């Protein structure tokens, strides 16, 4: 007795411990779902964050001269300044053990003493053409090399001369250069300049071998025919194919590829007062800023047989002040604008987004540069250099760019495009979720089109007409289909069904006709059988009787297929569809997916709809039958009506499954993201897209996050369907129990 008493305390303790543990375990299910939801959101969120701008460091420059150029290294540790006396100074932006912020790393004179630097023209990252008042031209490249010691990293700053320290001869006649632009790759450097004597010239330095290791070159001078004497601004594309020459409010475009002549390609005439020009990364677009704070993007569009520059889209800064300068990023389609009063705006072209806007400075800076990783900007105004961090990892993604038509460079018109990777470097990823969402809906639609009639009729018959003995065997057999791995269905669809459908296409359509027809014929034949036989083979065996009948009609459909093909479609349906109807025909198309995924969805719908119909209370049907209604009338007017919410929830579940199915679509379609309802073409779905692209997307990139967004869309979609279905089912269950 005492023993029992003693243990009561520990028993109670165990009991409440168990209660807590089990409650915790139960709630962990909810926690898991919420965790998935929150984690997906957590990964997606940065994509939609707007740009954040924060000052990192500010230093006071030792030189009080006007600055012409600036730049910063990749890790934002060292910046350089080039002033109008040709002095290059490197400053530390980050304190180390020995050095403080703002200490000078290196000072180097780039032009002879006493001379003034008249031009410092940038081409690409840290490649500058310097022209001084003595008409000396040099190419310089401020260089930052990281050296590693045992436990620290040291940056060594240096000035490189890619084409040697000697003055370059850009103009044959050695006239004073007024405006100049240049571009350089490993084989060629091209200069386009306007001279004091009113000529427009193009000079090419053609490398003997390769500029990366041999600065030797040959020069080719050309004069460009140009109608105007005034040249305000010149730009040369980094791929050295085009030059843009601004004169007043027109921009003339010249082709530079030919070494013999420089033809005028076209003249861009925007209807505004041009205040600034810039080339967008990728050399296809030109940005034109005007006096009203509007920037327009222009690129070539093929129209009426020839390609011409068109205004694609415009951006405006809210202040309405003239755009003094446009600075573009090196690798992305972002650009920065600066006004006279120091207002800085950040835009992204294809997503048409204004990422940031604010008055960063008191007036327009003397020098401005974007860091190599585009995560900071550096500005010099008078004697103060400011490094400002720009957190802007995913400028190309906006809600509207994901779901609206976007006009990409090189395309004829705005379009929905999903194209996440490509072979070339300056390729712009195109993330429109429309084609893949459309593909998801298309696949689900064709699957449901195939599955719903079969699943629902089968459910009705099994639940309402079938004998219990047969039902006990039939139901698990059909439900067995649900257990079949979808990878097997997909494999059969892609490698077995797709070729059959391709060869016997007419048979598939004949079957739509043959199967119901043969069923009706068999039914009518049975109806007209003598009574004695009817007793022996009762109507309740209909599904079994029909199996051979349907198999025969299946055989006939396939046997007739070549005949139909020969007589109606001239021997080849595929050619008929492609040539006569003008529809593309893919071997792995929506028809195949519809059939294969239909099979995967049938058991889901069947099982739940059958349950709903079967659990309709018997007294309802008995009452109806007692009042003289036929079996069929009772079914339609009483049973289906009562069970309709259950059938609805079955359809929702089926749809949810079809939407999220991955392997079948992956294997049975060509996975091309197209917008086309055609049953003879494939599609790419959200789920398959994730399976294809996720393994090769870089962690943390826009692509990675958008794939998470695709998963999130799937999650929300199925969440809505499932919750709705469950809700309806709960209500139905309560209704039944009250009946």
């Amino acid at each position, binding site marked *: 007795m005492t023993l029992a008493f003693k243990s009561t305390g520990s028993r109670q303790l165990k*009991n409440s411990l168990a209660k807590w543990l089990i409650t915790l375990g139960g709630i962990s299910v909810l926690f898991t779902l919420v965790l998935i939801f929150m984690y997906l959101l957590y990964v997606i969120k940065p994509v939609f964050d707007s740009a954040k701008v924060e000052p990192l460091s500010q230093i006071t420059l030792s030189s009080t001269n006007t600055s012409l150029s600036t730049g910063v290294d990749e890790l934002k540790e060292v910046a350089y300044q080039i002033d109008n006396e040709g002095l290059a100074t490197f400053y530390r932006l980050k304190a180390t053990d020995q050095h403080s912020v703002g200490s000078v790393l290196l000072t180097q004179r780039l032009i002879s003493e006493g001379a003034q630097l008249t031009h410092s023209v940038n081409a690409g990252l840290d490649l500058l053409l310097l022209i001084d008042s003595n008409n000396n031209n040099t190419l310089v490249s401020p260089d930052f090399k990281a050296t590693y010691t045992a436990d620290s990293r040291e940056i060594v700053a240096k000035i490189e001369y890619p084409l040697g320290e000697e003055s370059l001869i850009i103009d044959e006649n050695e006239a004073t250069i007024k405006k100049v632009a240049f571009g350089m790759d490993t084989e060629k450097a091209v200069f386009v300049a306007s001279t004091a004597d009113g000529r427009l010239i193009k000079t090419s330095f053609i490398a003997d071998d390769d500029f990366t290791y041999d600065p030797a070159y040959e020069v080719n001078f050309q004069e460009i025919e140009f109608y105007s004497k005034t040249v305000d601004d010149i730009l040369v594309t980094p791929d050295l194919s085009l030059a843009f020459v601004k004169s007043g409010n027109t921009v003339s475009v010249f082709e530079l590829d030919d070494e013999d002549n420089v033809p005028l390609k076209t003249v861009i005439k925007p209807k505004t007062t041009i205040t600034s020009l810039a080339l967008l990364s990728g050399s296809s677009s030109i940005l034109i800023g005007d006096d009203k704070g509007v920037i327009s993007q222009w690129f070539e569009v093929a129209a009426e047989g020839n390609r011409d520059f068109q205004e694609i889209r415009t951006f405006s800064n809210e202040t309405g002040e003239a755009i003094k300068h446009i600075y573009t990023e090196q690798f992305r389609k972002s650009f920065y604008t600066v006004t006279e009063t120091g207002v800085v705006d950040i835009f992204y072209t294809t997503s048409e987004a204004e990422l940031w806007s604010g008055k960063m400075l008191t007036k327009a800076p003397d020098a401005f540069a974007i860091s190599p990783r585009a995560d900071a900007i550096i500005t010099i105004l008078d004697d103060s250099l400011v490094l400002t961090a720009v957190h802007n990892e995913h400028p190309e993604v906006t809600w509207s760019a994901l779901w609206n038509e976007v006009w990409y460079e090189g395309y004829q018109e705005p379009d929905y495009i999903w194209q996440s990777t490509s072979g070339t470097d300056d390729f712009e990823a195109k993330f429109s979720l429309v084609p893949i969402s459309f593909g998801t809906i298309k696949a689900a639609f064709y699957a449901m089109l195939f599955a719903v009639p079969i*699943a629902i*009729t089968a459910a009705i018959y099994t639940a309402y007409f079938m004998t219990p003995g047969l039902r006990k065997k039939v139901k698990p057999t059909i439900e067995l289909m649900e257990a079949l*791995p979808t990878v097997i269905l997909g494999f059969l669809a892609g490698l077995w069904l797709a070729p059959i459908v391709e060869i016997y296409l007419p048979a598939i359509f004949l079957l739509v006709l043959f199967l119901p027809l043969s*069923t009706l014929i068999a039914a009518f034949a049975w109806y007209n059988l003598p009574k004695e036989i009817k007793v022996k083979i009762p109507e309740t065996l209909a599904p*079994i009787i029909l199996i051979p009948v349907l198999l025969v009609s299946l055989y006939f459909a396939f046997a007739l297929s070549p005949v139909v093909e020969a007589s109606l479609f001239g021997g080849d349906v595929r050619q008929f569809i492609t040539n006569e109807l003008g529809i593309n025909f893919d071997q792995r198309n929506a028809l195949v997916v519809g059939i294969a995924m239909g099979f995967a969805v049938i058991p889901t719908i*069947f099982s739940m709809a059958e349950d709903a119909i079967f659990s309709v209370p018997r007294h309802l049907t008995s009452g109806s039958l007692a009042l003289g209604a*036929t079996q069929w009338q009772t079914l339609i007017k009483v049973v289906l009506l009562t069970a309709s919410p259950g059938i609805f929830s079955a359809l929702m579940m089926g749809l949810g499954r079809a939407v999220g199915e*991955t392997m079948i679509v992956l294997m049975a379609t060509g996975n091309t993201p197209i917008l086309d309802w055609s049953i003879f073409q494939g599609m790419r779905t959200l789920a398959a897209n994730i*399976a294809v692209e996720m393994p090769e997307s870089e962690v943390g990139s826009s692509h990675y996050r958008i794939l998470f967004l695709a998963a999130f869309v799937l999650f929300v979609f199925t969440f809505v369907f499932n919750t709705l279905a469950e809700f309806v089912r709960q209500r139905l269950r309560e209704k039944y129990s009250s009946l």
Partner: protein
Amino acid sequence: MMKNSNKEQKNMNKWFSSGSPWIWLSAGGVSISLISVLGLLWLIASKGLSYFWPAEIHEFKSIDQHGKHTTVIGEIYDREFIPASQLAHTSIVLDPTQETVERLLVKTGNRELVSLDFRWILVPQIQSTSTPEELAVIERRTNGNFYGYIDSVVLDGKEVEKSKLPELLTRVDNFQEEIDQLQTTDIGAINYQLERLRLKERKYKLDNQLTEARKQELASKTQALKDEYTTLESELMALRDEVARDHIVVRAMDGQKVTINFEHILNITYNNKLGLFEKVGTFLSQIGGFLIDDPREANTEGGVFPAIFGTVLMVLLMTVIVSPFGVVAAIYLHEYAGKNALTKLLRIAVINLAGVPSIVYGVFGLGFFVYMVGGSLDQLFYPETLPSPTFGTPGVMWSAITLAILTLPVVIVSTEEGLARIPSAMRHGSLALGATKAETLWRIILPIASPAIMTGIILAIARAAGEVAPLMLVGVVKMAPNLPLDGNFPFLHLDRKFMHLGFHIYDVGFQSPNVEAARPLVYATALLLVMIIISLNMTAVSIRNRLREKYRMLEH
């Protein structure tokens, strides 16, 4: 006549108004479903099993439109009828009344002689077909099968009787086994230990504990292992030489003579000579080989053992994780949860966990488990291997956890159903006798519900075994160099990637260079997977049914 058709019309109308046609149509739905399920299973079974059946080797002598005679030796792989019009552009002369032409797809093997190991031949061009008994199928380690007549057997440079062949094959087999043992187990173990020593040194270095003594010790251990490696290597070389001692000379279909060394030969069979029993024997041994051999030729030949092993291991791990959680959650829902909003939310959560597309779990698993949790684990416990990740990369453990979440609702729903069937009288009885709720649960409820729990677990296993999409993101690979379980400490390598039957099907069927040749193997793998899953399901269903019967008896 008029009267007759009127009567028929009436009969028709009566038939329609009875609703019978619609009933029959709905019966048609059942029939179509049944035909498709059974047809699908039959298709997979027949195609899968025929892969193992020793096919007859035919020798076709044909003459083409230019009067050229050719001999083709091989297995008939497929036959089809093509419209005669498709051949109209060639100069082939056909019977003009014929609308279709039969053609055979013949697997000719002999990949080193011809670029394609399949060939179409038109039946009208075939002059004669025979199945000579002397035709041999030589199964090889590389380059696929070789079909031809064995001309001579050469033992160490001297020609010997053909009857010596089986003996020589057994000898080589034994050597090959030894080589495998040496290569994978012994040398593999040394490499593994060397890598561990390297990591140990790095760890000491990172922790600033690399003293001279330790350095010495590690160096001497490394040297010892390297010495052992050298001896093993020379042993391996000796064995390789032994294996490569003999060769056979085979005459191919075009009369060309080819020397095949025994080191490449796996098996030689004379398919045309085999009687029924021998065929059954070969059939069974082929199935056995399929189940226990390693894959060859980029998975398109050989067995699927690593895939079976990977699937089973991953599913077992998943079971260990999912069972307690699923059962506890079901107990909470049925025994503890009150009728409140939280319970409703929980039920919605369960339904949604079941309905969320599996690929979403894959995405979640990759982001959360692999990169976030795994990445943190690496930082904390495996800094010495960084930057190459240990757990911060897809692997078998993450796959198991991801699939555990995916199958959680299966276990919950099934267990809860079992709990619901237990008459409340049993709970009341136990509580009335003074047992606490926990004791009632542990002693009364759980034992009775255990078959239902089993059912749930089996269904979860079946679901997990067939799931591929999420695994493609969290741990499955085309070809894993090592099994996740081996003889090297700590034996179970949860961080390793693994092979999986379902992924094997996808990969070989859709990503392999020679899909046509690999297709039968894919059917065989599909059959294996289907059989595993269906037998699991049937077991679960039969347990459930028996359970239902039992409870029905309890109620009365």
